[in-house]
């Protein structure tokens, strides 16, 4: 075992079969910045191997989905999946807790490789009740605030503005949801923040020397939980859902969203939701419960996110219900 990736109460073993695969495994762990103690319950293993030629999809198995954003095709054979991009092929047996990853040598230079590896981890974690959500997770007054939107909607900038104002945080981009007896909770999945050089000046840390963000060459990957450990949170119970959109305005505004609007917005940011009918039902039900426990708003994000973060912090703090935890 080369490393153990701990996500909430779960641990995934990462095993590399050669030096190049070990380097990719190391970068994956650095990218996720997850705990590596291995103290969680073992839910599976990811085996990484560098190959000269990617394996073909299993014969006779139909294509289940194509994800053009990642140049990814997916085949489903009962409970098992086979993903393949031009650089990576992954066989996942979620019920057995096994993911075998074959990589071409040039895969390490592609951000899509990490997106595919994240999908493999999602497939391993899913039978254990952890569902992925493309969202930032913040904490204010002990209440969780999720910010969900497609890339380029100002999620990372807003998250950093609120962290700068003292809000707690889980992630600026990738969360896992867990349905618990006390409601749906969020855990950090990827803990590095992807920051643009101009926003680095907001932090009391050196502006240079950070690794490049694998999925976005303009950004650097900053291990925020190491830099601001007092604000890093391990999980939260979301009571506010924000869906930001950048607008040409000086001041940000909030518009309440109907539950059905919030649910469709969350579904658009939930990877793998359409993959399997059984999973989709469970996934939609959990997202529905999340919407049911939270207030939802469209955030029309103005220039004050950059120019007056304290005003945005006050605006968004007003959405957090006082005493929600005691209810």
């Amino acid at each position: 075992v080369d490393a153990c990736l701990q996500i909430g109460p779960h641990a995934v073993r990462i095993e590399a079969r050669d030096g190049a695969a070990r380097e990719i495994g190391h970068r994956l762990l650095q990218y996720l910045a997850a705990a590596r103690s291995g103290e969680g319950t073992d839910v599976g293993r990811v085996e990484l191997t560098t190959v000269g030629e990617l394996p073909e999809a299993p014969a006779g198995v139909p294509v289940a989905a194509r994800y053009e954003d990642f140049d990814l095709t997916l085949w489903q054979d009962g409970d098992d999946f086979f993903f393949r991009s031009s650089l990576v092929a992954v066989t996942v047996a979620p019920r057995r807790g096994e993911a075998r990853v074959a990589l071409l040598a040039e895969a390490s230079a592609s951000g899509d490789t990490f997106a595919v590896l994240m999908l493999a981890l999602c497939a391993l974690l899913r039978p254990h009740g952890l569902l992925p959500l493309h969202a930032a997770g913040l904490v204010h007054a002990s209440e969780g605030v999720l910010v969900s939107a497609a890339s380029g909607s100002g999620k990372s900038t807003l998250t950093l503005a609120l962290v700068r104002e003292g809000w707690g945080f889980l992630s600026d981009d990738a969360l896992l949801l867990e349905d618990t007896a006390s409601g749906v909770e969020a855990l950090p999945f990827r803990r590095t923040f992807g920051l643009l050089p101009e926003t680095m000046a907001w932090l009391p840390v050196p502006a240079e020397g950070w690794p490049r963000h694998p999925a976005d060459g303009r950004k650097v990957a900053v291990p925020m939980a190491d830099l601001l450990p007092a604000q890093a949170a391990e999980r939260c119970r979301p009571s506010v859902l924000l869906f930001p959109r950048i607008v040409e305005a000086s001041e940000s505004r909030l518009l309440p969203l109907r539950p059905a609007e919030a649910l469709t917005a969350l579904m658009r940011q939930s990877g793998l939701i359409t993959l399997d009918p059984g999973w989709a039902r469970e996934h939609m039900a959990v997202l529905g419960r999340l919407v049911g426990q939270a207030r939802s708003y469209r955030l029309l994000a103005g220039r004050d996110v950059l120019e007056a973060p304290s005003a945005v912090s006050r605006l968004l703090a007003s959405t957090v219900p006082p005493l929600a935890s005691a209810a």
Partner: protein
Amino acid sequence: MSPLQYLSNPDVVSTELGEEAVLLHLQSQRYYTVNETGLAIWSLLAEPRSLDEIVDALAQDFEVTREDARTAARAFLDELLADGLVREAQS
């Protein structure tokens, strides 16, 4: 010949949220929001239903005439059929 019946597509997953619902078509990966009347019709289509049965249910549960219920149900079923959310079935 018995009347045409309508049945929801098993590849469509739905979640109710108060008086609305969200439908997800797993094949096309498209999402739909339906209102209170749409939700009432969608809930009936878990089993094969004729247009008359749907009209009866709407006229009973909502304050509408049978004529208005038929117009609304016909239009909604046409949209559902066009996007493959329901199927026609001969009883």
